[in-house]
């Protein structure tokens, strides 16, 4: 039986999702704050012992073979050893991995999110567009699907089955079963969690960036997801390339005459690496 979702219902039920990691917002604020210190970052991270433990573990793996030879024991040492920018990336990804884990979603959901995040970062480098929020926008772009799967598992499964065995686009099928698509739900949730406006817009419009082409993060996230699906990075049976907005490619200055094989190779190898590290 199709349901007719409303924004009020999405917000009401979102209370029953696992708590959205506060550290994500804290770190996003530091991206815009030139006075943010290492100490502040460490304080944010240390509020959550699970995230702290994972960061120290990943930092230890990354520095394996260091001539220092010593094991990192805390976030302070991790920051000083592996650098602020890298620690921020690890914290964001680990936080989202924990959130996805607590939300009990399928591993393919998380792997796809990681792939789009990596792809958005590589595209930003390739086109010299700011990559500040690319990682978070990629990790969160399909958060609306997580909400659907959690609260309406039967309808969510019916959407997947229909998409898997037909040529219909996913948004069309979602609107049939939910009266709303996952992009709209992603936007409502990102807004509820107080994420920066560019991130809210990117998750809201990642399937159709045409109304907001001047927003580079939206264009990046759209092209990143299309490339991930075209490269079949998760290999799921239902994978298909959604609509592709060429204007988004033009808006970020994507040049098809550059070395595309190298871009695709980096996206594929980095995704494999990230999925293994953050599993």
């Amino acid at each position, binding site marked *: 039986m199709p349901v007719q979702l409303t924004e009020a219902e999405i917000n009401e039920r979102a209370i029953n999702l696992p708590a959205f990691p506060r550290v994500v917002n804290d770190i996003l604020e530091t991206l815009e704050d030139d006075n943010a210190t290492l100490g502040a970052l460490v304080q944010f991270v240390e509020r959550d012992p699970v995230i702290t433990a994972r960061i120290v573990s990943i930092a230890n793996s990354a520095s394996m073979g260091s001539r220092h030879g010593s094991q990192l024991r805390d976030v302070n040492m991790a920051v000083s050893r592996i650098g602020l920018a*890298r620690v921020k990336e690890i914290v964001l990804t680990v936080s989202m991995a924990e959130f996805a884990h607590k939300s009990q979603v399928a591993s393919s959901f998380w792997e796809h999110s990681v792939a789009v995040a990596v792809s958005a970062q590589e595209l930003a480098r390739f086109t010299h567009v700011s990559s500040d929020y690319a990682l978070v926008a990629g990790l969160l772009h399909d958060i609306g699907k997580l909400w659907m799967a959690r609260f309406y598992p039967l309808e969510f499964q019916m959407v997947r089955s229909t998409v898997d065995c037909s040529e219909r686009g996913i948004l069309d099928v979602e609107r049939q079963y939910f009266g709303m698509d996952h992009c709209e739900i992603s936007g409502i949730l990102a807004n509820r969690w107080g994420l920066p406006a560019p991130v809210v817009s990117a998750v809201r419009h990642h399937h159709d960036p045409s109304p907001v082409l001047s927003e580079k993060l939206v264009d990046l996230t759209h092209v990143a997801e299309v490339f991930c699906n075209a490269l079949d990075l998760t290999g799921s049976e239902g994978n298909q*390339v959604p609509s592709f907005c060429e204007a988004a490619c033009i808006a970020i200055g994507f040049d098809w005459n550059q070395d595309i094989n190298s871009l695709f190779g980096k996206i594929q190898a980095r995704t494999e690496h990230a999925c293994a590290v953050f599993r």
Partner: protein
Amino acid sequence: MVMESRLRYLPISEVKEGMVLGVPLVLSEHGVSNFSLPAGHALTETNIRQMAVRHAEFVCVQVLDERSEAERLAEYAAAEARLKHVFRGSNLEDPAISRLYEAVLAFRRT
């Protein structure tokens, strides 16, 4: 018969001693290069550790293409069939979709 080589992008966990870099490797931090190796360099255990310490996530290596012509054609055909499945809902007459399809197909044939 001279065996052809091809470039492969591998996650750092799959890189082994003796593999040959396919393109120059440059690692940097804060925009400053802090480690580099030339294309054609055969990686040592020490190199691999040095890359891990500097957070390298992937490496482009040159590998010999040991596939027979028949194996290669079979792989191309399988890759193209899968690509057609992934693009099943797309209009391949659309220039943007067509360009992307061809780019991914070319990548799969490297």
